[in-house]
């Protein structure tokens, strides 16, 4: 789970930075990464790591493996940005790398540990990176799923997502440990996914 005290990746800038605008398009960011712009990589990470993390974590039972795959993905993007054709969608490109990295890392695991999970896997985003674009319908379904959560999980989602509290603030307000809030968020996510179906 996220250590709240860590520096935001976007804060890491170097003298070579050229892309400053957060609103830069994905293709522009990748082009800047290809020229060695660290800040552009940080922006790319801030923009795409959250959903890649969700997707990788859903594909494996091992968070360590997913984290390694996520790290490898952005290292590969850094080294391979020049090779990016600019024709495809950047999310599809990143997910293609991430999926291959996860598969190759999983192959190196000892037999029997079964780090890859087929269940819970949704449509391959490489074929439609815009699949998550929220329609009004999806929004309503998620609100319904949140409403169906057990009280403690709904309270955690309400504090962090709807009221914008940090994990620390949510923990203080409810008088529980930060780890408890994190695990409630985790279970809430799994329950929402279950309710929304594949």
């Amino acid at each position, binding site marked *: 789970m996220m250590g709240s005290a860590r520096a935001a990746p976007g804060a890491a800038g170097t003298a070579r930075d050229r892309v400053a605008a957060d*609103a830069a398009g994905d293709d522009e960011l990748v082009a800047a990464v290809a020229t060695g712009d660290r800040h552009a990589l940080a922006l790319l990470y801030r923009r795409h790591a959250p959903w890649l993390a969700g997707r990788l974590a859903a594909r494996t039972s091992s968070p360590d493996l997913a984290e390694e795959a996520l790290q490898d993905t952005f290292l590969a993007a850094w080294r391979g940005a020049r090779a990016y054709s600019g024709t495809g969608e950047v999310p599809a490109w990143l997910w293609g790398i991430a999926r291959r990295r996860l598969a190759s890392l999983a192959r190196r695991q000892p037999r029997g540990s079964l780090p890859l999970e087929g269940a819970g896997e949704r449509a391959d985003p490489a074929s439609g990176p815009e699949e998550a674009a929220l329609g009004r319908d999806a929004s309503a379904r998620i609100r319904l799923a949140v409403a169906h959560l057990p009280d403690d999980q709904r309270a955690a989602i309400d504090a962090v997502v709807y009221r914008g509290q940090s994990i620390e603030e949510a923990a203080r307000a409810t008088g529980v440990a930060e780890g408890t809030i994190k695990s409630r968020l985790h279970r809430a996510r799994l329950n929402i996914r279950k309710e929304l179906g594949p």
Partner: protein
Amino acid sequence: MTEHPTELLLQIADGGVPPAEARAHLASCRRCAQALEALAPLDLGYVWDGVAAELDAPRPGLLERVLVAVGVRPGLARFTASTPSLRLGWLLANALVLVLVALPLALRPAADWPSAVLLAAPVVAAAAVAFAYGPGVDPAYEAVAATPLSPLRALLVRLAAVLVANTLLAGAVDLALDGRGPTAGWLLPMCAVALLAVVVASRWTPMVGAAAGMGTWVLVLAGWRASQQPVAWLTGPGAQLAYAAIALALLALLARSMAREGWALPGGTEAA
């Protein structure tokens, strides 16, 4: 007040790609970024730290990459590649000394002189191995001394690496500048003198070790000139046997003395 895309955050945390129109908000909104970090099933800050650390890690040099490519363990490869006397400056200086000795003999060959490499290689190797490893020589000595790599093994690894490098250098100079064709007569004396330098350096200082090795070889050469013996006295089978015996004896002495001293080189933390 800006509308926060709350349900979208949940969907992103579950693997959904944010639509382009939400990007500007997500990129600038601290509150949403914080919620995404809290919801993420992975530690995004930790992963970014890993990415940044990899980008900042120094790229291994050519020698280290070659060693890793031929199957040497990465740690040992870095340890070998960081040998002070394998730096380009050292190797160039060694080559220069060999060439400066070999050039006059190549220009004016003298049948009663041994190959220039036999004269110079032991001297060059003595300095190189004496400064290959030890406190005061290697900035990483204390760090290496705290690892499971035993000082004897560390010393032998460095010794072998330096000897290989100097053998290649000496061989190249021998081939290029000595008209009498390649000889390997200098290899064993070079090893024996280098070992002498290491043994002395491991007991005193690298400078004393280098001086002892070089001085001994100069004395041997002076003795040979003074006795007006033929070149075979220096390079013949009997001499080679003697060099080999001396080298083995010095190696045994090195291992014994280091075992007795608690496997540390003088000047290190353990000996202090």
